[in-house]
């Protein structure tokens, strides 16, 4: 092992020790030993302004803004700026803030400040409006205590508080003081996180260390986020030493990066998103559940993830990714069963290997879209796989998959979209209500399954986690085994291309790229428990 690396590890160990030590002493130690250059990200998405309502979620991802709750890669929720959240009864919640919290500008984060954020977000933010049911009342009931009352049982409140775009906690006074000129917010320290905004323009977001961060002194001097839409340029920038970490690299970059010195391919938190296949049950052949099942069984999910996509994406073993606590691995590949199902349904293999029934060929149209280039190899592989079962696939590229599926005149059998199986805050019912429910607005096929609807409805008002798990498992069983009208082809991963300094980079918490302990080399992930 190189001496430099061992030194780094030693340093990290010291940091760990120091972090465990009481705050007052640790501060002086840190100042002497920890001086890390700013971490430089290159990302594809431009942060358009410092408006906390529309763009605040980005600042949460880069360690500027913080939320009341945190959703972690173990699939569970933990208090973040809250000290605790308590479910008094089905309709009442009590939120208790941490003591001694301050904004970067030194103002206290008290119940008044948080309530001001909640009220302002409820007024201006469409995602807050859509996430919090109508009639919900937030009120201060004690110092550092806010009570939430809902009209109906709302178990999704916790994921909602962990959702980055709903209630990022910011200094409402500071924000309202600048009116529409959000640019003036730079340098005002209006968030609570370990890094504060120095400047933001079209090219970059520049952050500096928040010396007074409540959980401890951040180890990096700062963070720079550059906005570069061209993926190739982002990778070249890391390779050329102009950036440390490239966000959102295309999957196809892995093989090259693996073979190139100085750049590394690393995975981040597990993603709940994936490519979702939606079958059109209004038309033949997918109006027949047997054909739907056969199609689902004929696809080799392991090959898609491991061979076609080189393992850069995860195999879809069920309706939820494996890491999700309540997931069951019931999505299987069984070509023989698929053939048998089709045989039983009366589809006979024709001369050219394609099945036929009553003169109709078993030929389906699969819609993909260019914004997701990975869909090309995936769909081509599926085309080859289901051909074994006698199903012919015609791949069509459409400009906008949403427009195509919404448009009445489009002829389609399978539409592939990219979407989450959980919401950003980790709620399963959010996406079920968006896609899978009969009345969901993205139920483009207009498919109805009363059994599934009942399960979703029940889930939406159930608090008890064991009961929820039971419902979810039943849902997965029905969805995958009996009525695979919608299912996942692969699950996404979060990926980064990093230089050698950051080859141990692990943005442990869901969606958050940087925190106060992030450094080059190995480092600890904060838990924020019992501070």
């Amino acid at each position, binding site marked *: 092992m190189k001496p430099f690396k061992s030194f780094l590890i030693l340093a990290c160990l010291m940091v760990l020790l120091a972090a465990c030590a009481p705050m007052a002493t640790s501060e002086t130690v840190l100042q002497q030993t920890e001086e890390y250059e700013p971490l430089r990200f290159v990302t594809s998405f431009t942060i358009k302004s410092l408006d906390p309502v529309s763009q605040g979620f980005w600042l949460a991802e880069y360690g500027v803004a913080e939320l009341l709750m945190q959703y972690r890669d173990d699939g569970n929720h933990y208090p973040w700026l809250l000290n605790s959240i308590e479910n008094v009864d089905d309709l009442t919640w009590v939120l208790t803030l941490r003591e001694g919290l301050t904004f970067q500008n030194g103002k206290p984060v008290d119940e008044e400040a948080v309530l001001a954020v909640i009220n302002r977000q409820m007024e201006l933010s469409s995602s807050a409006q859509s996430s919090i049911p109508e009639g919900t009342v937030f009120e201060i009931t004690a110092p550092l205590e806010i009570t939430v009352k809902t009209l109906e049982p709302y178990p999704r409140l916790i994921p909602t508080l962990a959702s980055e775009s709903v209630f990022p906690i910011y200094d409402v006074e500071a924000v309202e003081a600048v009116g529409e000129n959000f640019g003036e917010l730079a340098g005002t320290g209006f968030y609570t996180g370990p890094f504060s905004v120095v400047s933001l323009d079209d090219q970059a977001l520049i952050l500096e260390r928040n010396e007074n961060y409540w959980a401890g002194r951040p180890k990096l001097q700062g963070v720079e986020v550059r906005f570069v839409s061209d993926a190739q340029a982002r*990778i*070249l920038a890391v390779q050329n030493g102009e950036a440390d970490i490239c966000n959102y690299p295309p999957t196809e970059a892995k*093989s*090259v990066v693996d073979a190139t010195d100085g750049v590394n391919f690393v995975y981040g938190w597990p993603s709940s998103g994936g490519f979702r296949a939606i079958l059109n049950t209004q038309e033949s052949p997918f109006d027949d559940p047997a054909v739907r099942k056969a199609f689902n069984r004929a696809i080799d999910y392991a090959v898609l993830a491991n061979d076609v996509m080189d393992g850069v994406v995860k195999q879809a073993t069920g309706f939820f990714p494996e890491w999700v606590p309540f997931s069951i691995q019931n999505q299987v590949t069984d070509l023989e069963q698929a053939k048998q199902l089709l045989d039983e349904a009366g589809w006979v293999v024709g001369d050219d290997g394609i099945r036929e029934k009553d003169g109709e060929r078993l030929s389906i149209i699969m819609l993909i879209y*260019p914004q997701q280039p990975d869909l*090309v190899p995936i769909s*081509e592989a599926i085309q080859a796989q289901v051909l074994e079962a006698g199903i012919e696939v015609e791949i069509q590229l459409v400009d906008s998959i949403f427009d195509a599926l919404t448009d009445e005149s489009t002829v389609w059998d399978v539409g592939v979209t990219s979407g989450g199986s959980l919401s950003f805050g980790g709620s399963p019912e959010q996406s079920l209500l968006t896609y899978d429910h009969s009345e969901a607005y993205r139920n483009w096929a207009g498919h109805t399954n009363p059994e599934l609807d009942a399960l979703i409805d029940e889930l939406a008002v159930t608090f008890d986690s064991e009961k929820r798990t039971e419902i979810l498992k039943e849902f997965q069983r029905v969805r995958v085994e009996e009525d695979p009208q919608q299912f996942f082809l692969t699950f996404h991963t979060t990926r980064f291309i990093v230089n050698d300094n950051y080859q141990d980079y692990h943005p442990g918490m869901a969606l958050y790229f940087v925190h106060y302990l992030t450094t080059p080399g190995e480092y600890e992930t904060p838990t924020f428990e019992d501070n």
Partner: protein
Amino acid sequence: MSFTRPFNPLDAAAEIETALPVVKHRKVTARLWRHSQARIGMILGILLLCFVIIGPIIYPHDPAKPDYGNKLAPPGSQHILGTDQSGRDQLARLMEGGMRSLGSALLVLGSVSSAGLVIGLIAGMSGGWFDALAMRLVDVMMALPGMVMAIAVVGVLGPGFINLLVALVISSWAYYARLTRSYVLTARQRQDVISARLAGIGWGRVIFTHILPGVLTQLIVIVTLNLGSMIAWISGLSFLGLGVQPPKAEWGAMLSGSRFYFTFAPWLLLGPAILIFLSVISANLIGNALRDILDPKANE
């Protein structure tokens, strides 16, 4: 006020002192072949055309068939130029992409020159309101740079290869219409045309026998001269993702897609780069030579 002075007999006569009329080769192709730069251009052009037309017939690989187990294979015996990021045969894709790059450049130029020919011919011959209207439209179209106009049309229609071609046609027909019209206007006053008219030959036949051949010659020169830049435009805009959408092959798009494999698989980038360069230079060499041979006075 005009700077043209009356035809001066002695200017013409003075030429004879240094260059007597030499019996030239009448066939343009033969004259091109004797032009050394044109010969290089023609050999290159023929090789490129063979590459994209005959190549796919004799080369056994399917350009669209991915082989995920054999990605980014280096050039070798099975895949002569290696494979791309999806394991598709690079040589086959270069052939298919060339058909699209070169074919579409020719298609666009063919359509704009025929559209320009028809409009310019009618405008020049009819005069009157059609001429006035068409020429105002031409003025306006030419007031916007071609690239900007193409961006406007692609911006409206959305990215896509057909849309790109439509955009290029819309943004470049005007030049050909103006060229044709001005040629027709000059030709109407030409002495051989006046002679034919006075002798009783109708306009229709005069157009087909005296005017059109000249217009066509001019257009062929201009089309060849513009072929290079058209190839560059199509591949450039496809490079930016405004043209061919994956998985279809096109040189500009292939170039774009292969950029980050460069350190690992440079052949993926160099292939389309070299082919684009060779096509443009071939077209330029032939175009310059054609201009020298057919149209020595025209500098633009």
